[in-house]
């Protein structure tokens, strides 16, 4: 192969097959991971990445295929035997107990018995050696997401792994935390530990990986040298077709009319698990996209609820539409006023999975069919009324359906999202509020969704985009702000901030005014 480092093979998987029922998640996958190599696994949602690494970590058993480690065939029947074979894994969703300390959490996961005191010194030693900065006696509930991830890494390092699997490790991190993580991973790799890095973020892969294997619908379609490729090439190989660029027309007119405002909005959390919204001020104008960046769980869900009208505010004047207070209007009334919201969760929130598309259209359209004068027709107002409109939505938005009027759960994620968007946009909203609109959607659908957002603003509508995806925020927004722990930063024009500033705000590290001063 002629690679400069680590030409010695650590793991060799041959013809891995795994199917669930009729669906085959992995088809004849071959993958070679060299010692000390950072090997990226790239693919869209559902391409089979998670299945493959779960097989490596012994969570799933392959139907057929063989795995060799150091040229010896092994059978990995459980995570326990994976660890014995030197494989460690950091999951996308951490499995830490928030009420326990770091050391206690690590103790639980250990296979062999250790003295608690020795464990603490061992953790401190590893933490120092790898610059992970984890205090073994701190409670996990007090740690940030990045710190929790480092706890998981330490947990793996305790076993002296030869291969560390990282499943989408950056999806919950700020840019600063990401660059920190990359430093750690690079040091680990240069010390001889191989890393299998799963991601669908192209830039990251080019930055960190040596080799990249691309999966598409369960098959491994290419293994490429990551240092000699481009994001465009990776994206097109991953999707299998050319990707059309977004058309963004700059319509910078000088003065724009104010559409929606939040003024000193406060909303204490209703349960112990929610985030309180604190003194939020926000303004979005017609013809503008306002991007709200932030790490998940910092109040986006709660903000969405007060914006949509699912919960009303305590004071009517906290939300204004064209300077008219609407804080007490419920979600149906706000829809009638022209405010459409698209929640983050596609199933069970924006749609009901086991109802048909026409019933799901009726879900947000029912008030349209109510007439003031006809009691009987109001009483018998049912989803039959929305049959024609639902068909039109499916057609206009190129939603591919397996049959006429299918159940919502028969549509793929991307198609379902196209329907949800189409359903809202068919109401011709003045203000459209989106939460994570392209999350988990394939690139083709994501591009078409982003284009729709741009079209809205070009048609002089006001758009709010809440997203974790910084690239998306920067690509689409005219104005940017950041939500952190229930407070919203100042709104800034997109050309006046960098991803690094936004990253700092996402981590809640710095006061924005002083930070902007530094930039100037």
């Amino acid at each position, binding site marked *: 192969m002629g690679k400069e480092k680590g030409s010695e093979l650590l793991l060799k998987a041959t013809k891995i097959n795994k199917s669930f029922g009729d669906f085959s998640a992995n088809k004849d996958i071959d993958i070679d991971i060299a010692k000390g190599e950072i090997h990226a696994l790239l693919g869209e949602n559902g391409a089979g990445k998670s299945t493959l690494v779960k097989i490596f970590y012994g969570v799933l058993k392959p139907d057929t295929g063989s795995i060799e480690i150091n040229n010896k065939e092994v059978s990995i029947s459980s995570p326990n035997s994976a660890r014995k074979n030197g494989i460690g894994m950091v999951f996308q969703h951490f499995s830490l107990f928030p009420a326990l300390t770091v050391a206690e959490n690590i103790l639980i996961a250990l296979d062999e018995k250790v003295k608690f005191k020795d464990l603490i010194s061992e953790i401190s030693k590893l933490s120092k050696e790898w610059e992970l900065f984890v205090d073994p006696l701190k409670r996990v509930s007090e740690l940030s997401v990045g710190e929790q991830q480092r706890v998981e890494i330490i947990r793996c390092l305790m076993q002296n792994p030869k291969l560390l699997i990282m499943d989408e490790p950056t999806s919950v991190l700020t840019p600063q935390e990401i660059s920190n993580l990359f430093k750690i991973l690079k040091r680990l790799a240069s010390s001889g530990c191989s890393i299998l890095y799963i991601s669908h973020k192209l830039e990251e892969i080019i930055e960190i990986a040596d080799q990249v294997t691309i999966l598409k619908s369960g098959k491994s379609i290419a293994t490429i040298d990551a240092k000699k490729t481009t994001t465009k090439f990776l994206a097109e190989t991953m999707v299998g077709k050319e990707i059309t660029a977004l058309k963004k027309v700059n319509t910078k007119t000088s003065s724009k009319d104010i559409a929606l405002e939040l003024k000193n909005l406060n909303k204490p959390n209703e349960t112990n698990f929610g985030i309180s919204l604190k003194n939020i001020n926000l303004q979005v104008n017609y013809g503008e996209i306002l991007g709200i960046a932030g790490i998940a769980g910092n109040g986006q869900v709660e903000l969405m609820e007060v914006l949509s009208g*699912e919960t009303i505010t305590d004071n009517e004047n906290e939300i204004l539409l064209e300077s008219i207070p609407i804080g007490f209007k419920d979600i149906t009334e706000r829809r009638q006023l022209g405010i459409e919201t698209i929640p983050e969760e596609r199933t069970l929130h*924006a749609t009901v*999975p*086991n109802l048909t598309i026409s019933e799901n259209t009726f879900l947000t359209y029912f008030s349209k069919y109510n007439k003031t004068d006809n009691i009987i027709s109001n009483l018998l107002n*049912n989803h039959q009324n929305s049959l024609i409109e639902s068909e039109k939505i499916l057609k206009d938005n190129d939603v591919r359906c397996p049959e006429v009027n299918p159940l919502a759960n028969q549509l793929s994620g991307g198609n379902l999202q196209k329907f949800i968007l189409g359903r809202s946009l068919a109401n011709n909203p003045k203000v459209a509020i989106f939460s994570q609109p392209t999350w988990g959607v394939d690139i083709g659908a994501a591009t078409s969704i982003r284009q729709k957002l741009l079209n809205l603003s070009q048609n002089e509508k006001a758009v709010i985009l809440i997203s974790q995806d910084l690239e998306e925020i920067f690509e689409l927004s005219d104005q940017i702000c950041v939500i952190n722990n229930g407070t919203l930063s100042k709104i800034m024009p997109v050309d006046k901030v960098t991803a690094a500033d936004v990253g700092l705000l996402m981590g809640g590290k710095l006061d924005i005014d002083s930070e902007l001063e530094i930039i100037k």
Partner: protein
Amino acid sequence: MITFTPRDKVSKNWTIMGPALSIFFTVFFGLLIFALLGYDPLETLYQIFISPFSRIDRISDVFVKACPLIIIGIGLMLCFRANVWNIGAEGQFIMGTLLAGSFALLFPNVENKLLIFIMIFIGFVGGALWAFIPAILKTKLNVNEILVSLMLVYVAMLFIDFIVRGPLRDPMSFGFPLSKPYSDGALINKIPFPGIGYLGQLHYGVLFIVLLIPFSWLFVNKTLSGFKINVLGAAPKAARFAGFKQNAITITVLLISGGLAGVAGVIEVSANIGQLQPEVSFGYGFTAIIVAFLGRLNPVGILFAGIIIATVKLGADNAQMSMGIPKVVTGLFEGILLFFLLTGETLQKYKIKWSKVKK
């Protein structure tokens, strides 16, 4: 290891095979158990399944027995569709009966049948009020409705016991805990058929089902309110997103189901008993939970489920009377029947795979 995977589509074979296998296994195990216990197995099966349909008056008794089960089952259907777990229909049945009965006893000499219609209305209010307690506790204080509604059953049982032993006891009842008999206006008559006379206990109250089934079908399938209930049960967040008021729906379904349980009580007592006594229900409120689920929370299904359960109950009575088979044995058979009915349904919905576990 056994794994269940949902079928993409309900398989045509299994829609026939499922029920057929359920019946086969029920009969097979029924025969086995009765034979092992020393009863004539074929005779027992005949008593349980066939004898309730052997004479036209017995058939009408099946409907009489099924009547309260179906009425309560329809109310519970609304609750369960909305994911509101009203387990206390028994208590609502009792309180509806008690309130309406107390009202009837204020008019000892009324012959006008208007009285029974007023009683049905009062029975609805009584049952609904009893269900309002879990409703308000759930919506205001987030108290689990299962516990509250269930515990209120025992409160209601003891309360009616106290009332008929105390304030409402008939002085002429020779010490029995019974109220005075209802006046004629408070009774539901049997239906006379010209040339035949009465068909068993068949009474006008059964006609209520004839109205209730199509009306409730229309309600759950063709109205906005029915849609709201379905959405709330399937996806509470989607209901919020649609702008449906969760608390209002929760209170409404509890009031309707409590009310219907009360109505069932009034009809049952006015048609078959004619006075208040400590035991008015015989577990109808609990059995109706099974009826509602066996009928797959669907009005027509509940009609058939009510008839099936009533048949087996009456058949068990017949077997006890004619063959001396104890209630526990026929109860065991009921259990076998339910087990296989539910298994058959599961087989329709899921594929089952057996795989060997490798160590």
